[in-house]
């Protein structure tokens, strides 16, 4: 075949093979090829019809899948490509670029998620049964509904033409447990009463609420503990004037934002909140031992590295209780009353430290990880109150057996 010399194509060819060369040098194609050859060798030499032999195709597909995974993981300057993808999506105003993952971007680059409808039957039955059991033991139950990033499901319908049901699911469940006489707090009502805007309460690029929201929510919970469970927490201890607020601007990227890229949604702000008054805590966590000290032992400031490792570094939401809150115990030596168990999700990373300021003993469990008997744990520890504090998006997870949050409402 004869062509007039096309220098553009020649240069593109050279560029293409330089890219392939760099990718091959950084990734492990040779290792994967050796694995595939060894699978074939096993198939040829084995006389027995083993499960492995019959699954040769599956194993080869797994190895081939690793090629793409390996290539992506080891891509030279992967973040440049992520940013290119994000930049193009932003330039073309593609708000539903990852709608297949159920996430959308509003006009203010605020990432929101979509949630399915549920009957709430499982959650309701479990809460009722749990409440009955706690009543027999003389233990208070307080259900706290934490909002998601929007309080009206119509937002997604109007902006993106998709139906979402998180707020409707929460309304239904709370109505049902209210009719059954169970005390609850719906923080959506509290934020409206306090004149707050839900969009200011959450990170734009992360599904969690911010530290200011954590402090505010803790005050609401403390007031509810006083009113409904007979506590006498001095709620003035949660006034903003009692804390220092250190602001970090445009410094980190939330978990949702890491999918869309910083070039699309931009970086987040962060506020580190610390009490001005004296504190004295003991923190115990299985696997991490025991630590004693001021409120500062609940903060890991090594996470706070502005503009560094924005894709791979830890999420700043986990600055508080960075070792994890599951199976943790926080004891406040300055307070004599109150022994609380929080059945929590990751929202409670910024609740537990502040609640421990007003309560003597706060233990936390994340039921998605807890495999033992919850009721035995409660009996053994003699709590006076159990708080179920979930983001309302937890409602409905039991409809999907593959969900990591499948057992969050299983209170056995």
């Amino acid at each position, binding site marked *: 075949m004869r062509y007039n010399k096309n220098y553009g*194509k020649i240069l*593109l060819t050279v560029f293409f093979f330089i890219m392939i060369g760099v990718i091959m040098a950084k990734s492990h194609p040779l290792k994967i090829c050796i694995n595939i050859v060894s699978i074939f060798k096993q198939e040829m030499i084995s006389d027995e019809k083993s499960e492995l032999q019959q699954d040769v195709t599956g194993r080869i597909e797994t190895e081939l899948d690793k090629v793409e995974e390996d290539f992506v993981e080891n891509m030279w300057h992967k973040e440049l490509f992520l940013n290119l993808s994000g930049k*193009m999506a932003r330039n073309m105003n593609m708000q539903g670029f990852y709608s297949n993952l159920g996430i959308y971007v509003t006009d203010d680059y605020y990432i929101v998620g979509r949630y399915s409808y549920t009957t709430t039957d499982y959650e309701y039955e479990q809460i009722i049964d749990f409440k009955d059991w706690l009543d027999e033991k003389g233990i208070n139950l307080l259900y706290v509904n934490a909002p998601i990033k929007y309080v009206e499901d119509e937002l997604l319908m109007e902006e993106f*033409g998709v139906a979402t049901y998180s707020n409707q699911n929460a309304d239904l469940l709370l109505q049902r447990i209210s009719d059954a006489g169970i005390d609850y707090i719906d923080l959506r009502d509290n934020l409206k009463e306090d004149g707050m805007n839900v969009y200011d309460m959450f990170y734009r690029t992360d599904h969690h609420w911010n530290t200011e929201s954590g402090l505010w929510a803790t005050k609401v919970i403390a007031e509810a503990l006083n009113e409904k469970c007979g506590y006498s927490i001095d709620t003035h201890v949660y006034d903003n004037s009692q804390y220092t607020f250190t602001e970090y601007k445009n410094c980190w990227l939330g978990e949702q934002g890491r999918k869309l890229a910083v070039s699309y949604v931009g970086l987040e702000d962060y506020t580190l909140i610390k009490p001005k008054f004296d504190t004295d805590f003991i923190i115990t966590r299985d696997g991490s031992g025991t630590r004693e000290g001021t409120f500062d032992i609940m903060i890991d400031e090594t996470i706070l590295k502005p503009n560094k490792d924005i894709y791979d570094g830890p999420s700043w939401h986990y600055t508080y209780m960075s070792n994890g809150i599951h199976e943790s115990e926080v004891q406040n030596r300055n307070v004599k009353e109150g022994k609380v168990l929080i059945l929590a999700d990751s929202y409670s990373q910024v609740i537990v430290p502040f609640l421990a300021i007003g309560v003597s003993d706060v233990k936390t469990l994340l039921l998605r990880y807890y495999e033992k008997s919850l009721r035995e744990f409660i009996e053994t520890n003699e709590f006076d109150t159990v708080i179920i504090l979930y983001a309302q998006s937890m409602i409905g997870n039991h409809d999907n057996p593959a969900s990591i949050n499948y057992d969050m409402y299983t209170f056995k």
Partner: protein
Amino acid sequence: MERLKHQIIPYMQHYIFPFLDKFNQGLCQDILNSIIGGDGEAFHERRITFEDFSEGTYRFIIGFNKKILLANTLANITGETFSAGSGDVSMQLVWLGAICYSMQLFFDFSGYSDMAIGISQMFGFGCPENFNYPYMTASVSGFWRRWHITLGAWFRDYVYIPFGGSRVKNKNRVYLNLFVVWLLTGIWHGSSWNYIFWGLAYFIVIAFEKTTGWPEKLESRLCRILYRIGTLLFINFQWVIFRADGMKAGLMYMKSMVWCPQNALADARAGFLFRDNFVFIIAAILLCFPIIPSLEKYFEKRKSTRLVWNTVLAIINGMLFLWAVSLVIAGRNNPFAYANF
């Protein structure tokens, strides 16, 4: 038993076994030709030149860009529309899904073909073209001379012609031959009733065109234009049957395309999907036409414009390639803690 001995066995000996022999020989020769690009002598004369190598690489890049930028993006729309329940759709939404699927399939398949042709070209092997702007077709018969050309050629050479093709004494036999070809074409695509229906629907229309001589015999230009539009609509409906999860789902989808109750939410969704993917949808529609080859022909006339054109096109394709790679990486990028939410 007697019938078997006196009628069926001779029939098989006279028609089926020779066909199978020829099929086998032809298949082996075809594979040989594909692999070595011709006969033994040609094989030894095959040379790998840098021009071929760069042309092949360029072709591969174009195929990759088509697949990732166009096909995969349009697949997000079609995946949603084809999996929606009948109560969750509107006419706008299903038409958007159907048209996007027609383009998704084209760019997906032609993208893979380009990559295969490009890799072969890099090593000095010639592979036949598989697509020739199929949606430019004026008739359904013409469509199959532009779409998956190698498949059509294979069925022509190893099924239609051995059965006698069009050169049979009994003209009705032509239709039988066509019927067999399209039944097998449907089955080739999948062992499901919707594929068989899809193949036989093509048989009906192609038989109609053969009988009437349309659209070539249509004298009025308006009639030929209308026939072309009708052809595209027919092909579009056929792709709906092809894509659907079974015959029933396909018919339900087609019914929604013809009539659907008002659904404001689905309309809003269709509007959003169109706006959100506007650039890709428009680019896909434009690239269904031979715009690039026409521009190439225009700029190739003079050396100076040829150089500029070739360079600009290479830069654009290079940038599109980087963008396509970024989409692959972003698609695989799963931030460590996100799934735990």
